[in-house]
């Protein structure tokens, strides 16, 4: 790239197509997208794909090893693990998605305000963000979930709120980077209102890194939800969630290893999928940001 092309606006027109072309060539990213799609399909079509009722207990089938009738074995109450995994995908993916949406709703407006207005607004928001970032993500989520009471909804709120500071910081940084670009200045010179400048000119340029961060945060949120459920602070029994399945499985490690192996692999694969996808999106959308 020659020296003077570097001064064009951060997102030139039609860059979406170029990013898509770059993404399509990235095999690892496509693998991530495929894994994510498989899990989304599992969650959406769980009732069709399930071989058993995920809630059906049976004393005749307690802790049976994987077999033709129970593909991934059964748990301590005789429930089919394969069917519970499918329905568990719903809880995990929903937790990942909803917490990230909460984090975006809380984080982006504050980040935009801090970056765009600067001054006191920025000082207050930035100090508060630093304070929240000082409490490790999972500890804050555990404390919030504990004080709010254990349930999937509260776990999602806790994870979303805990993840918000990262989005505030990211958005603020991006706004600072584009605030003094020519196109923002000229919009202001033409008399556009602050709101219009933010929505029409600043936000679109902040989007690519936000999309990347959101994808990676879904991965983090899935692990966080599984962690909270594992501790008993997430989705409550008898509802299936991967984390709570592992929580009971750890009591039967030797007698029924399949109870731990499959839910854990599901978490691992789902999180890996979102991480691969996030990496691929970063390469395609945001080549400056290496991590």
């Amino acid at each position: 790239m020659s020296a003077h092309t570097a001064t064009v606006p951060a997102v030139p027109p039609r860059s979406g197509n170029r990013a898509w072309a770059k993404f399509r060539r990235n095999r690892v990213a496509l693998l991530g997208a495929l894994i994510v799609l498989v899990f989304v399909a599992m969650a959406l079509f769980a009732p069709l794909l399930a071989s058993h009722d995920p809630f059906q207990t049976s004393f005749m089938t307690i802790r049976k090893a994987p077999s033709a009738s129970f593909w991934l074995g059964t748990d301590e109450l005789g429930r089919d693990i394969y069917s519970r995994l499918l329905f568990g995908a719903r809880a995990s993916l929903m937790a990942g998605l909803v917490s990230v949406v909460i984090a975006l709703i809380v984080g982006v407006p504050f980040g935009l305000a801090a970056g765009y207005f600067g001054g006191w607004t920025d000082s207050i928001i930035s100090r508060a963000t630093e304070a929240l970032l000082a409490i490790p993500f999972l500890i804050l989520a555990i404390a919030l979930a504990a004080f709010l009471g254990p349930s999937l909804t509260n776990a999602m709120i806790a994870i979303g709120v805990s993840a918000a500071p990262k989005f505030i910081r990211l958005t603020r940084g991006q706004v600072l980077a584009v605030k003094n670009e020519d196109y923002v200045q000229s919009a202001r010179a033409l008399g556009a209102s602050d709101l219009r400048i933010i929505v029409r000119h600043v936000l679109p340029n902040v989007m690519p890194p936000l999309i990347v961060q959101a994808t990676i945060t879904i991965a983090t949120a899935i692990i966080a939800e599984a962690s909270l459920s594992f501790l008993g602070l997430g989705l409550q029994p008898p509802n299936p969630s991967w984390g709570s399945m592992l929580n009971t499985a750890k009591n039967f490690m030797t007698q029924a290893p399949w109870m731990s192996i499959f839910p854990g692999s599901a978490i691992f694969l789902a999180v890996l999928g979102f991480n691969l996808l996030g990496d691929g999106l970063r390469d395609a959308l945001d080549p400056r940001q290496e991590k």
Partner: protein
Amino acid sequence: MLRLILRRVLVAIPTLILVSMIVFMLQKILPGDPVLTLAGEERDPAVLDYLRDKYHLDDPLPVQYGAWVLQVAQGDLGKSLRTDVPVSTLIGQKLPVTLQLSVMAMFFAVLVGIPMGIVAAVRKGTVVEMGANVAALSGMSIPNFWLGIILIMVVSVQWQLLPASGYVPPSQDFWLSIKTLLMPSLVLSTAIAAYLMRHTRSAMLEALGADYVRTARAKGVSPRQVVLRHALRNALMPIVTLVTLLFGELLAGAVLTEQVFTIPGFGKLIVDAVFNRDYAVVQGVVLCVAVGFIVMNLLADILYILVNPRLRHA
């Protein structure tokens, strides 16, 4: 330089105050009358009135906060609602366990992550780099409580090599202490090692592309010297800061690791407190972790100023 450090210290103060406010507000989101929660099983009106008075619960919020901060500043984090033991005592008992676990985990993470990052950057575009990238992504994606369960099943149950749970203080039996925490600290280190690898790799890639590296190469410095003396020394600077910052992540990860391996540390303390609705303990632990993190952050920045010649002479 002194002014730079002083300014950094001053910036930490509002953050500390805000953190204390957040932790204070935690108890305000509790549903129901806080006195009933504080009193536990006790329902004697005299006791309830005493507690209401002691915690200034009838006063406006800022007064309550002021009273609470004054207590905390004197090292009084309240008492456990269950055991009546002061929260500060509990933290004092459990913190060394988690610190030992975290230090061991950080040791492994640095030992694996940084060399892997260097090799991945030097061997860019080869199978080696791809392997390192896959390993790092897997390390980031694997839930450490699950890895713990699998390792217990294989290493402790099948092979009977290492103890599956428990804790022995190093003062009692040093090697046994290391041995019991070996598996938990390895489990805890995976995500951090992955993180360190990725950051070292990108910092090294940047350094290897810098002008001074090209100059060194042109002068005929051996490739090994270029990597270790010229590129690594510059790339390591942000990594040192990162290592201190990642201690916060370790403390959080320790919560789950301690749960899986039944280690009586900080994580076990907060989880047990959550289930006993022992809110004073939860608050105390969160505050302690946050303050620790802010102090680490401060130390990291001061260290950065001290090791960076450009800032040292500023």
